[in-house]
């Protein structure tokens, strides 16, 4: 073994744990070196650079593959007995280090729990185990004539459990909602091994919904094992249209006006000048693409209203072509593979803002990124919209200056973005979550709510075994 680890190895792990895990999940445990290396990281971009340099972020002590909720409970109880960390793992596509086992311990890969339990056509709901891969779930629905409408760019490489745990948002979310709007019921095993399950009803007024605490908990409170979600009949019609504007503020203003009319196109995306050049090869303009889908008549109406607003705001119509191009390229993820080996450090950071502060937040963050020495690319697009505001998705890329380590450079850009976002009254994450990267900023984001979150964590997970070191909610920081 001639590779290093960034986070210290767990020296206290007792091999007897593996034996005992084997009796809970017969044949479903591994401490093989190759497996531990593969489960040492998620898709946190800085980890890719470490990896190329021959360093893995953090080695888990073992990986276990439960097949049912009882086994999950057994694993968690055992981990409590040994006070050893448990790190839930969906597909490892998280981009903020959420699934990195920084304290070692047991990685619980949920992939064997990937069954579609039921499709309820009358109530338009699907129940599935959370280890299911997103595309496999969508394909299952597709062949039965439905869609979930939750299509994140990571559809091919993320899981239902990961979506719920990170509060993910899909590319079609302006119409279908984010994962917390789509989920109806949750089944989970909590950090003390107890089992909770909510009812698959559209709503209930039965006090605070305890199970919803798990949405966005990133594996720090328990493991989500099953969920019931909304589905839709496969859309009968799709309409696409695009417009270019002279400035991003103009494009944003246009979409704000569309949203005020209670029109919800499935896909709405506005690219700033640099990203318009990057994706559509048009210089000095800002592209807006719109995609409407669903019932034929409704789509026609939504398109008509949207086009009217765009025109009245002096948008220049560009037809379907840019939308088709986007559809074609939307899963074409190449940048990390192409640029990381060249020493470039790239990442994306998503934040949200009310309309009132949207433009000042956009400008402040772009400027903040540019101010960091070594940054070459600083751009953004807006990709999820509400009548109340917008999600901005920023990209930065650059080269660490001389005498600055890659991580230091990376952290400096992140710090600059987070500071600017908080200053401009934005929320520091719209859908990627907190993980390791945002942990130190959560306190400022949450204010007093953070101490309540910590108290909740303490009650549910007194031994701090669930995904320790993440979100800043444990007692180890």
């Amino acid at each position, binding site marked *: 073994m001639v590779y290093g680890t960034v986070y210290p190895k767990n020296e206290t792990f007792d091999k007897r744990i593996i034996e005992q895990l084997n009796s809970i999940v017969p044949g479903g445990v591994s401490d093989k070196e*190759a497996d531990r290396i593969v489960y040492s990281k998620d898709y946190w971009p800085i980890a890719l650079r470490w990896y190329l340099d021959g360093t893995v972020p953090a080695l888990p002590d073992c990986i276990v593959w439960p097949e049912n909720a009882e086994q999950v409970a057994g694993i968690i109880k055992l981990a409590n007995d040994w006070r050893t960390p448990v790190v839930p793992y969906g597909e490892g596509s998280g981009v903020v280090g959420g699934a990195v086992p920084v304290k070692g311990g047991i990685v619980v890969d949920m992939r064997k729990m990937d069954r579609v339990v039921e499709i309820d056509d009358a109530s338009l709901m699907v129940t599935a185990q959370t280890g299911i891969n997103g595309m496999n779930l969508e394909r299952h629905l597709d062949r039965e004539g439905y869609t979930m409408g939750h299509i994140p760019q990571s559809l091919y490489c993320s899981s239902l459990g990961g979506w719920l745990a990170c509060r993910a948002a899909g590319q079609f979310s302006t119409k279908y909602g984010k994962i917390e709007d789509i989920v109806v019921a949750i089944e989970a095993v909590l950090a003390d091994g107890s089992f909770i399950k909510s009812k698959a009803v559209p709503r209930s007024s039965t006090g605070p919904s305890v199970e919803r605490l798990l949405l966005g908990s990133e594996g720090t409170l328990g493991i989500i094992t099953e969920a019931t979600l909304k589905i839709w009949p496969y859309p009968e019609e799709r309409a696409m249209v695009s417009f270019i504007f002279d400035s991003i503020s103009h494009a944003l203003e246009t979409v704000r006006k569309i949203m005020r009319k209670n029109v919800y196109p499935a896909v709405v995306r506005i690219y700033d000048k640099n990203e318009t050049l990057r994706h559509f090869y048009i210089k000095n303009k800002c592209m807006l693409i719109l995609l409407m889908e669903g019932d034929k008549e409704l789509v026609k109406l939504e398109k008509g209203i949207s086009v009217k607003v765009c025109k009245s705001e002096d948008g220049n119509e560009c037809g379907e072509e840019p939308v088709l191009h986007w559809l074609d390229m939307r899963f074409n993820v190449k940048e990390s593979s192409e640029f990381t080996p060249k020493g470039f450090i790239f990442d994306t950071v998503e934040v949200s803002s009310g309309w009132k502060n949207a433009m000042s937040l956009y400008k402040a963050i772009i400027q903040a990124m540019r101010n960091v020495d070594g940054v070459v690319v600083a751009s953004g697009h807006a990709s999820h919209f509400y009548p109340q505001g917008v999600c901005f998705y920023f990209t930065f890329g650059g080269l660490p200056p001389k005498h600055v380590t890659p991580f230091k450079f990376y952290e400096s850009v992140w710090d600059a973005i987070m500071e600017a976002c908080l200053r401009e009254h934005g929320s520091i994450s719209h859908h990627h979550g907190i993980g390791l990267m945002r942990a130190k900023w959560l306190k400022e984001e949450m204010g007093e709510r953070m101490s309540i979150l910590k108290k909740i964590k303490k009650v549910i997970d007194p031994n701090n075994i669930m995904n320790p070191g993440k979100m800043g909610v444990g007692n180890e920081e």
Partner: protein
Amino acid sequence: MKSKYAWIMDSLAKTSFSTKARAMRHFLIGKKEYLRRKKTRADMDSVIKCALCPNMCKFDCPVLAAEKNDAMSPSGKTRIAYFIETDRLNSQDAIELMYKCAGCDACMQWCPFDFSVGDILKGVREDIAGMSLAPPRIIKIKENLEKNHTIHERKYDKSTDGKGDVLYFMGCEVSSERGEIADSMTKIFEGAGEKYVLLKDEWCCASPFINLGFTDEFKKFAEHNVKAIEESGCRTMVCSCPTCTYVFRHIYPQFGFEIKARVMHTSEYLLRLMENKKMAKAIEKECVYHDPCALIRKLGLEEEPRKIAKRAGMKIKETYFNRKDTKCCGMGCSLGSTNPDIASKMADARLEELKKQSDCIVTACPTCNTTFRKGGVEVYDISEIVLKAWEKA
């Protein structure tokens, strides 16, 4: 401005001179740091790109679906390959991982770089063999093939004397398990009045050597086969096995072995042969067609077998995962020999899918054929379909 990097150039133009200079240097030489100093058979540029990918094809990898271990996902394997190739890792489990792939090219269907991890790993295995790290059981597979000249035992004992226009290269699976396919083909040749040849000393096309990283042995077999093919005097060479077809057509030339005859898969040959021939309905019941991964993804033969079945009066049912979305039967890239457990789980999964449509399967690969038979279904090769339809007419 329709350049891939215009957006970066545009941004770069706004930076300081020193940043520009550094960026250019990184662009030009940055990557070299990570490539192995030693010469590798593996394409390290692809290994690295794939290792850094978020695994965008993993959902469709049948090995991952069977084993549910991320280490066996496409990018999981290339991440470990990178560590092996850069001398950071040589543990047995890491080496073993490099053989856990069916070479089915499902990954390629979704890959933004058009990579097939199956192909990438062939180079890695060659390096592993070169570093004397190949597991003993892999070496045993190689040695057995060297000794027997065929993967299994040759049971089909018919051959022809003299030369002919059409050489039927039956391949290891037909010669050991699926003799009825060879019988169908010879009857068709006879019916059509073709002067055909069956080699007395047919050696394996040698794809297992390529799969497992033994190129010297591959070359030895290729030399034998090219000579035997040439001596047969054929102008057309017909293979039942899609892998044989692919290897003769595309891999032999890569190693400098040119086959002068036109290499055809039975589906291409039979479609042409039967163009003007009268055919009756081959089988009464509705059957489901299984696309063999090598036939559809390596050779792109999508319509040929379907057209044949149609000409033979059959209505073919389709699975949801059909054509390029097919699922491998598990036997690709020697996985059946190297990891029979994984292969058999893959076969079960595919069979379950096919059986939902029909318990009568039509396919165009003898290996898929044998694999599915174990599931208690009826399986027909397209050559058998053609023969039935023709005999009935």
